[in-house]
């Protein structure tokens, strides 16, 4: 059972465009939603994260939009650059239970063309 569904699986955008990656979830106990960026051969790097009481968060060129009623959230990358080409993962943490294990989506392979 996939608890966090991520789309699209792959995405190609021209430099300067705004790639948008979407995630959906069903578990209403999720209370923290981070996005990670991963380059080949490296570990995931935390980009930005949001809590359910906020509808939007911006950090630099990265923006998360969060729709609690629809149980969806998305990552927007402004003024995308070829260096942003990587795999992006959304994730979620479930409240309660005493553990902070993250549930990840399957990832989006993003290519920014020069």
């Amino acid at each position: 059972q996939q608890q966090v569904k991520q789309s699209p699986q792959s995405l190609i955008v021209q430099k300067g465009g705004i790639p948008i990656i979407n995630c959906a979830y069903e578990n209403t106990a999720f209370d923290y939603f981070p996005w990670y960026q991963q380059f080949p051969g490296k570990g995931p790097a935390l980009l930005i994260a949001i809590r359910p009481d906020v509808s939007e968060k911006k950090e630099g060129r990265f923006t998360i939009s969060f729709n609690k009623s629809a149980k969806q959230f998305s990552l927007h990358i402004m003024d995308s650059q070829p260096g942003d080409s990587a795999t992006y993962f959304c994730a979620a943490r479930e409240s309660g239970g005493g553990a902070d294990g993250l549930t990840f989506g399957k990832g989006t392979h993003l290519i920014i063309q020069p």
Partner: protein
Amino acid sequence: DAGVTQSPTHLIKTRGQHVTLRCSPISGHKSVSWYQQVLGQGPQFIFQYYEKEERGRGNFPDRFSARQFPNYSSELNVNALLLGDSALYLCASSLVGYYEQYFGPGTRLTVT
């Protein structure tokens, strides 16, 4: 400051063998989590440890075990290796009570 460090970088083992992977958290971080990332998939949660105790466990068999040491470093042990255990094993550290998790570079395990 150094980030999360993991050793070894790469490892090749044979089916049925045992493996130990090591992780040192970011200085000041007392919580360590382990994840398995199969090629082409997102990481899957295995364990979380802090104060040397297991605080949570994902859907992994008992062949997987871990421990945390007084200096907050951690070891992941996998017994009776299967071909399907081939993956990138990631360690993440965090401050206790904070949700942000910071990942190390991982250990690439290949089981032949």
